[in-house]
């Protein structure tokens, strides 16, 4: 296929999304499929073509990890997230930790200091109260660790068989410091992309318990609140352009979203990616790509090139960022696309996943 480098072959049209409006926007599916929750293209279309038109306003349609609200004299960040994790408890954490850290981290990704959290518990009839109590204790401990106040809450119960033990929704409000302007459209050619630590850890930890897969070593989830790390980063460099925590869909999805939102290309260095051996081994066995595996407690930062070294030093000085590395940069070429230099010196396109990543057969 060496002649494939020849670009004189026929071109093709991009997918035709014209005519996609609410209320019948999802032309391929008349029901929810698992891929709608996978964090890839199907998830993005569900949000962009179903929820955003239905709820539409300027604050929402920025589609950052957190909405940025105008308030008298202050700027607030506001975010919500729902948690449907199975199993409820896994190595390194529980749904309670995730429900706090997920929303707190979304606030932090707008540069905000998390202040208040709401919690909505949807409990399935029949679930043991001891289980609910363990989740609640983990939730409370995580909130205290993150320095956020649980200000309001709600509980509903659904009939047995209509839930999966415990579902949690949280919403959070944080304050954005003056001079900070972080949002997904701000990446610029030249920006250096930093990742705060090892990728793929949470996804592999969840898979190992959910599927009963043994990888020789126990892999613990990396769930953690990132507010402190972000505060330190912003103290050193208020002009951070974009922050994102690459959860569902992994780092590949995050980078694709930002490349598309900012209209820049992303050039990754595969050799620089921080993939722990245990994650690499698990992915090699299952035919998965660590770039698409979920993370918790990690962030990707797009920073101006002249501040990159300083930002990296600040990240590495914090316990949650001590393995931070630069993994690539933004380029003017191939806008909207993520291209990785392979270890052998070739390149490959790191595409947006459609839905969930599926283990390959061979």
């Amino acid at each position: 296929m060496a002649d494939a480098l020849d670009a004189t072959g026929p071109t093709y049209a991009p997918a035709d999304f014209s005519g996609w409006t609410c209320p019948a926007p999802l032309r391929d599916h008349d029901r929810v499929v698992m891929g709608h929750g996978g964090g890839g293209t199907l998830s993005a279309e569900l949000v962009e073509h179903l929820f955003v038109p239905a709820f539409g306003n300027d604050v929402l349609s920025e589609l950052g990890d957190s909405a940025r609200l105008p308030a008298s004299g202050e700027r607030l960040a506001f975010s919500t997230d729902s948690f449907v994790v199975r199993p409820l408890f896994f190595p390194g954490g529980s749904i309670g930790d995730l429900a706090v850290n997920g929303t707190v981290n979304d606030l932090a990704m707008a540069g905000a200091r998390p202040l208040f959290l709401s919690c909505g518990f949807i409990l399935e009839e029949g679930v043991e109260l001891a289980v609910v109590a363990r989740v609640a204790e983990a939730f409370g401990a995580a909130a205290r660790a993150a320095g956020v106040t649980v200000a309001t809450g709600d509980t509903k119960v659904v009939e047995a068989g209509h839930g999966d033990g415990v579902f949690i929704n949280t919403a959070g409000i944080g304050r954005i410091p003056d001079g900070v302007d972080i949002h997904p459209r701000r990446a610029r050619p030249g920006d250096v992309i930093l990742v705060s630590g090892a990728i793929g850890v949470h996804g592999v930890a969840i898979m190992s318990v959910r599927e009963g897969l043994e990888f020789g070593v126990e892999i613990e989830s990396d769930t953690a609140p990132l507010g402190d790390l972000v505060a330190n980063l912003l103290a050193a460099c208020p002009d951070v352009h974009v922050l994102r925590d690459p959860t569902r869909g992994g780092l590949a999805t995050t980078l694709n979203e930002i490349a598309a939102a900012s209209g820049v290309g992303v050039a990754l260095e595969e050799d620089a990616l921080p993939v722990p051996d245990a994650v690499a081994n698990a992915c090699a066995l299952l035919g998965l790509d660590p770039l698409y595996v979920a993370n918790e407690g990690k962030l990707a930062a797009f920073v101006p090139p002249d501040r990159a070294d300083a930002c990296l030093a600040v990240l590495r000085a914090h316990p949650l960022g001590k393995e931070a590395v630069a993994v690539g940069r933004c380029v003017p070429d191939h806008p909207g696309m993520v291209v990785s230099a392979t270890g052998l010196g070739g390149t490959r396109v790191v595409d947006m996943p459609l839905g969930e990543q599926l283990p390959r057969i061979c």
Partner: protein
Amino acid sequence: MKYLDEFNDPVLARRLFDDIRALTTRPWSMMEVCGGQTHSIIRHGIDQLLPDEIELIHGPGCPVCVTPLETIDKALEIASRPKVIFCSFGDMLRVPGSGRDLFKVKSQGGDVRVVYSPLDALRLAQDNPDRQVVFFGIGFETTAPPNAMTVYQAKKLGITNFSLLVSHVRVPPAIDAIMNSPDCRVQAFLAAGHVCTVMGTAEYPVLAERHKVPIVVTGFEPLDILEGIRRAVRQLETGRHVVENAYPRAVQPEGSPAARAMLADVFEVTDRPWRGIGVIPQSGWRLSSRYRDYDAEHRFSVADIDTRESTVCRSGEVLQGLIKPHECAAFGKQCTPRNPLGATMVSSEGACAAYYLYRRLQLPTTEEASSVG
């Protein structure tokens, strides 16, 4: 990871690229048989780094791609039935049948589950005695032994609510069929290493001799693939056509006797249709008469299924190396990874999907960029 890192060494790779370049004096086309090899070639950008004279043709060794539409429709039908738990490897779920895929069946209430081993499906059968558990047994000589073992175990343990929907295929008859095609452009084969780990190499010398074609048993890591290419070029340049084993750390000439014995007990060779190619004689396996009770096609009556293949999809020609994916009129237009007309556009191992991603880099536009965001 041991046996992975060592075979991904950029310095050694550079040396092999240099060797291949030094050996190559004119254009050669070779086919990597296995989808896993295609995936590795694309994943590491190997095709971009080879001399222009070397053309790699992506072969039919992607189990997702060659499973016939009729079989997928049968899977969809069985998976839709109440009281059935339908188990499959992950990437079969998105393969389009006549109008829908297993994901849609799942969203419409079908109990479709991704498993990592057919033995997981057998365990499900034990745990759910009031349900029928069906495993989708597709793939080559590599996936066939564990499926055979599962049926063997089911019979041994007296588990009667388990069955296998079988669409297993064999590599050597496909190589023969490709070489028999009057338009064939393939001058050498990189044979599928893991297939030979099971079956050994005894089936290949007759093919190399009959078609005067070099066959190099090749592994999957970058250095394995480069070594396979180097040996194929060396044979082509010197006018030889023998079977070479470039994957000796995993392939013994006799294969795995235990796996072959299991296959011989549970399966028997049969003619098998390949999606987009047609029936290839003796190219598949079905359950032998001793295990016929475990055949899902017998257990569920699915004979009268209306199968409609896309009229524009040319995946069969792609699978045989007769055309490049972009030479199909539907490529990138009606047919994309999100709306695949043929299975070659589904799996990342599929030639069309790999080519789609690859060409996007050559021809980027902002419209495209926004369409994926």
